[in-house]
């Protein structure tokens, strides 16, 4: 059988530098899903964009060929040697594409219906009425309950997942033979990701189109792909059938990726409940509401970011707060650090040492605050923006000590150098600028900066979610090392249950400002009780072909609380109380 798309020896470079994509070859069979896997900078996006020739202006295709053999027309063309006009007939018609950012890939000024039907008006000699009928049908197909309303709405009225569905509808409406999906689910929450992946798979089996799926997540690959191309630094490391590659990776790089991929462990027994009680940070009945001014004469609306949060971080342990976007987990972190005051009535207590008098974070004076800031520090999410580009590494690392007026200049530098060694870096970096370093190195730098004040509590706000998996693994190891070395306590915020599984001693699952379930990870994974927790666990893509995502479980828990089983059901904010079902395992349910 002739492959639908045949990429041969493709090399792409910028300017006079050495190629960023080098001798890449792969084939896509009709109806097959091919996954291009790699970390950032591996050239996976550039190679799949070369198929439609939508490369950045400075990129030059140095060699190779991309032949597309349409089964509908029975013709074979080399896409790299087609004139621009002919290529326009292929784009959107035979080959269509889904982009990573659903927030930015739809035009904010056009109604969704008009945007999607444009493809038909361009490629399929259709009149507006027939195009509309066809688009409405596609909208229904991709899972919109009310297609007519979607037709009329603007992208900003939709959530991320809904927009990505609309993107898929746009890509599918002309019934292409090949769909290129460039990280289609990276910007989405894990439960939404599961549903979108399920949708792509379903549409594919229905229409028989082939899919190129660009991703960095081996779990997604295991769930979707029939064949895999693993790329690293612009070169193909390994390619072949998914089953073979995933069950027994042959290349060292693939093996490394597998070792680093976070997994939810399969647990044989629940954890034994923790007995010693030495809390370093306690949040009691903490609520946080924001007033959003609606503008004009309308009444301001109240938004609840956190509702009745009770959390305790034990000394030397890690408490992880897990939730999807908008769940209020970051607000929790900010409250814990005293960056914002909680609503009246909430209490946040901090004990620097076991026998110290508790410090009231919710009600600090200036002196307390300075004392507290030395003992509690934060590690941020985005390593690219957490270090000022104008400061040398040394300046950034000595700044906290400068602010608190600790030590002399030489002592500060000494301390900064020591912290660099702690995070596995060389002190010679002190005189360099942060922009010379990779994301992982910079995250180490910002951990080092947080440590310079010798804190006892570290709040980590998604410290690994902007990093590649192999780097994520290293950073998690580092955080564990440091915790055990100096007895730090962590409040760890994450959206990823699998990341939390390895580092946390206790996990709290948050959903829309409410903690729905709280337990040590082993207990949680052994016996998840709440439907939302079950959905999160089920939606986690595992790099194991034998454990596909259970979409039914996902949709059961990810929906609105009104659709949950009787015991967990509630409406509005009148959630049932957090009940301790077994020692150390709390679930929000009616008992």
């Amino acid at each position, binding site marked *: 059988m002739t492959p639908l798309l045949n990429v041969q020896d493709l090399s792409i470079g910028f300017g006079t530098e050495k190629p960023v994509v080098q001798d890449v070859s792969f084939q896509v069979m009709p109806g097959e899903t091919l996954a291009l896997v790699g970390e950032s900078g591996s050239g996976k996006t550039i190679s799949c964009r070369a198929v439609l020739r939508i490369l950045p202006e400075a990129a030059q295709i140095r060699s190779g060929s991309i032949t597309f053999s349409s089964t509908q027309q029975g013709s074979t063309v080399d896409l790299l040697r087609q004139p621009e006009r002919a290529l326009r007939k292929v784009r959107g018609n035979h080959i269509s594409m889904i982009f990573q950012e659903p927030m930015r890939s739809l035009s904010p000024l056009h109604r969704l219906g008009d945007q999607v039907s444009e493809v038909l008006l361009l490629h399929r000699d259709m009149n507006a009425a027939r195009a509309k009928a066809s688009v409405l049908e596609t909208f229904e197909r991709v899972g919109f309950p009310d297609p007519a309303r979607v037709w009329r709405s603007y992208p900003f009225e939709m959530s991320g997942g809904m927009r990505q569905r609309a993107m898929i509808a746009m890509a599918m409406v002309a019934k292409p033979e090949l769909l290129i999906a460039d990280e289609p689910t990276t910007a989405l929450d894990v439960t939404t990701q599961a549903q979108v992946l399920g949708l792509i798979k379903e549409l594919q089996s229905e229409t028989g189109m082939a899919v190129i799926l660009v991703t960095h997540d081996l779990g997604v690959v295991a769930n979707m792909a029939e064949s895999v191309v693993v790329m690293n630094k612009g070169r193909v490391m390994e390619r072949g059938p998914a089953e073979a590659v995933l069950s027994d990776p042959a290349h060292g790089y693939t093996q490394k990726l597998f070792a680093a991929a976070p997994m939810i462990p399969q647990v044989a027994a629940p954890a034994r409940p923790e007995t010693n009680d030495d809390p370093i940070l306690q949040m009691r009945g903490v609520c946080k509401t924001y007033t959003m001014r609606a503008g004009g004469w309308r009444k301001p609306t109240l938004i609840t970011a956190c509702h009745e949060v009770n959390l305790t971080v034990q000394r030397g342990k890690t408490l992880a707060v897990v939730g999807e976007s908008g769940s209020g987990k970051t607000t929790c972190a900010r409250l814990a650090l005293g960056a914002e005051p909680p609503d009246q009535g909430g209490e946040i207590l901090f004990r620097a040492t076991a026998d110290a008098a508790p410090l009231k974070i919710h009600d600090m004076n200036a002196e307390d605050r300075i004392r507290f800031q030395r003992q509690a520090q934060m590690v941020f999410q985005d390593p690219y*923006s957490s270090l000022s580009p104008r400061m040398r590494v040394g300046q950034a690392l000595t700044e906290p000590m400068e602010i608190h007026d600790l030590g002399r200049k030489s002592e500060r530098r000494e301390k900064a150098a020591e912290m660099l060694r702690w995070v596995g870096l060389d002190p010679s970096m002190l005189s*360099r600028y942060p922009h010379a370093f990779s994301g992982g190195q910079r995250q180490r730098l910002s951990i080092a900066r947080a440590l310079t004040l010798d804190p006892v509590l570290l709040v980590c706000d998604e410290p690994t979610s902007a990093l590649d998996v192999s780097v994520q693994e290293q950073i998690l190891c580092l955080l564990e090392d440091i915790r055990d070395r100096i007895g730090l306590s962590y409040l760890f915020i994450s959206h990823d249950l699998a990341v939390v599984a390895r580092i946390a001693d206790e996990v709290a699952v948050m959903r829309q400002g409410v903690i729905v379930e709280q337990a040590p990870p082993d207990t949680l994974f052994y016996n998840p009780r709440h439907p939302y927790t079950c959905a999160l666990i089920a939606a986690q893509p595992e790099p194991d072909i034998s454990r596909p995502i259970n979409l039914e479980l996902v949709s059961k828990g990810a929906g609105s609380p009104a659709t949950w089983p009787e015991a967990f059901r509630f409406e509005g904010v009148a959630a049932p109380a957090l009940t301790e079902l077994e020692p150390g395992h709390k679930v929000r349910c009616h008992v």
Partner: protein
Amino acid sequence: MKQLPDGRFVDETPWSDDADLSAPERSDMDAPNWLLVWRKFRRHRLGLISGLFLLICYLILPIAGFIAPYTANERSAEYLYAPPQSINLWHEGQFIGPYVYPTTATADLENFRWTYETDTTRPMPLQFFCEGAEYRLLGFIPSDTHLFCAPEGATIFLWGSDRLGRDVFSRILYGAQLSLTVGLIGITVSFALGIFFGAIAGYFGGKTDWFINRVIEVLRSLPELPLWLALSAAVPSNWGPVAVFFIISIILGILDWPGLARAVRSKFLSLREEEYVRAAEMMGAKPGRVIRRHLLPNFMSHLIASATLSIPAMILGETALSFLGLGLRAPAVSWGVMLNDAQNLASIEIYPWTAIPMLPIIFVVLAFNFLGDGLRASLDPYKS
């Protein structure tokens, strides 16, 4: 590529996983911000040329008197409205170095205008490093040496002479001293005000922000020209030209700061969201420190670019005021004052060279715009 029995292809090049943790990934980024900006700006041809042009212009200012063959208010009573003269090198096929032909003026009593006749038989070589009228080098060293001047019995009006027989070329050089610096002084005033108000509005937000924004809007809603007129009419008429000049630049600055304050404010608002600013706040840095150490350095380059783009407005403002006779007044020389002489349409038609001061204005304003544009394009060197 090696094919395995199960149909897989595996890369054969030896692969190892021993990355040096401390090795910089992008050594090209390991440089202070200004160096990165310069590297990027260097590729911006038009901006670079404009920058060089402006640099030369400003370097000439202190030695304008040396380069100009005449001083600003030196009259040649027999040469009113003399047309531009050219400097030649060859006379009748023979090289004799730079020279001019002498001209003589006759009054055309039929059309009531001056006509000039050139005597092309007598080439008169220019003199170099010659003695002429006295001027002050760098503003304080008295000197009477000029780079070049006309030989005895001839004149050198490169761009003609004006109504009173003053050399337009020399006056443009002298005028540049005021016209080009008024922009800098004005921009300094508006910079100071703009950064101060923009920074407190952007950083503290809330009521402060609201109040400053309203003040900006009120200032912006005032019609500019009448306000200039009113303010400059308030300058006592017995003040010397230099005092008037300072007042004019400060007035221009005071009216210009709201635009800059808005730019500063919006940049502050976006920079505040950067995590390094949050990090500094979490470390316990006070607002003053956050603004000085984190916010200002990171948007200084933006400020410089927007300042570069607003200098032309200052220069044009001075020109407009002086053109209307409300800014600088004779005997001060600026490009606007010179154009004041060209207000009469009839004289422009007969003696078009009196409008030549427009050319340096156009070139300087364009150069500032190109330079500012080039700077703006290279401000963010971290995005590739």
